[in-house]
C-alpha cells in the first residue's frame, strides 16, 4: 500500500475579509428595509439585532426585489410558544427567515454566497429569539435563490406589520 501524498495548498485567494457595507436602525412604522446599489462583493451577511415589531408576524428576505418563484429553502425550527413555523418551500417567492414576536427580541444572521455571479446563490442563516415571556427559541435556514443576475439589492420585509423603535440591521460584504 503506497503512501498518500497530498498536494500542498496553492497560494491563492486570501480569506474572506468582511467589511461593513451599511448599518441602519429601522424607522418606526417601516415595514420593509432595502439595501440598494450593491456591487463589488462576492458574499453578503445581514445581521439583525433586536428590532422591535408592532405585532407577531413573519419576516421575509428577497434579492433584487425578485418576486419570482425562485426561492427554495428549509427552516425546521421556527418555533416559539407563540408561533410555530417548522416549514420548507421549493418554489417560493421569498425566503421566510424568521418569526417576529411583539414584546420579544430577535437576533439573526443571514449569509448570501456567490453574490457577484449570475448563477444560483446559496443562502444560510440562524436566529435566536425570545417571545414576550422570554422563552428562547433557535432556528436556522438553508436555501438557494435561483436568480440569474448578480446581487444588487437585498430586502427585509415584514408580513403585514411594522418595525418599532430600536434595533439595528447591518450588512457586511466580502470581496
Amino acid at each position, binding site marked *: 500500500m503506497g503512501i498518500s501524498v497530498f498536494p500542498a495548498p496553492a497560494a491563492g485567494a486570501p480569506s474572506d475579509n468582511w467589511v461593513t457595507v451599511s448599518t441602519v436602525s429601522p424607522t418606526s412604522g417601516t415595514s420593509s428595509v432595502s439595501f440598494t446599489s450593491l456591487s463589488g462583493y462576492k458574499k453578503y451577511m445581514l445581521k439583525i439585532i433586536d428590532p422591535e415589531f408592532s405585532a407577531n408576524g413573519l419576516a421575509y428576505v428577497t434579492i433584487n426585489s425578485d418576486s419570482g418563484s425562485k426561492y427554495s429553502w428549509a427552516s425546521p425550527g421556527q418555533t416559539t410558544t*407563540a408561533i410555530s413555523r417548522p416549514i420548507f418551500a421549493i418554489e417560493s417567492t421569498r425566503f421566510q427567515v424568521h418569526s417576529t414576536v411583539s414584546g420579544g427580541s430577535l437576533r439573526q444572521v443571514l449569509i448570501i454566497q456567490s453574490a457577484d455571479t449570475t448563477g444560483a446563490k446559496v443562502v444560510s442563516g440562524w436566529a435566536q429569539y425570545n417571545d414576550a415571556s422570554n422563552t428562547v427559541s433557535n432556528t436556522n435556514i438553508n436555501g438557494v435563490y435561483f436568480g440569474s443576475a448578480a446581487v444588487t439589492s437585498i430586502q427585509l420585509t415584514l*408580513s403585514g406589520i411594522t418595525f418599532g423603535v430600536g434595533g439595528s440591521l447591518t450588512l457586511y460584504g466580502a470581496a
Partner: protein
Amino acid sequence: MKPKVMEINTKTNEIIVREMNDEEFAQYEIDQAAWEAEQVEEPTND
C-alpha cells in the same frame, strides 16, 4: 396611512423613507390577512 419602506443606497449612504406603493401595499395586506387567518385556525398562546 400606508406603512413605509426604507431604502439605503449603499454607494451614497443616502436613506429614503417613503410610503409603500400600491403593489407593495397590496402584498402587505395579503400577508396581513394570511397571518390573521392562520391565527384563527391555529390559536396561539398569546
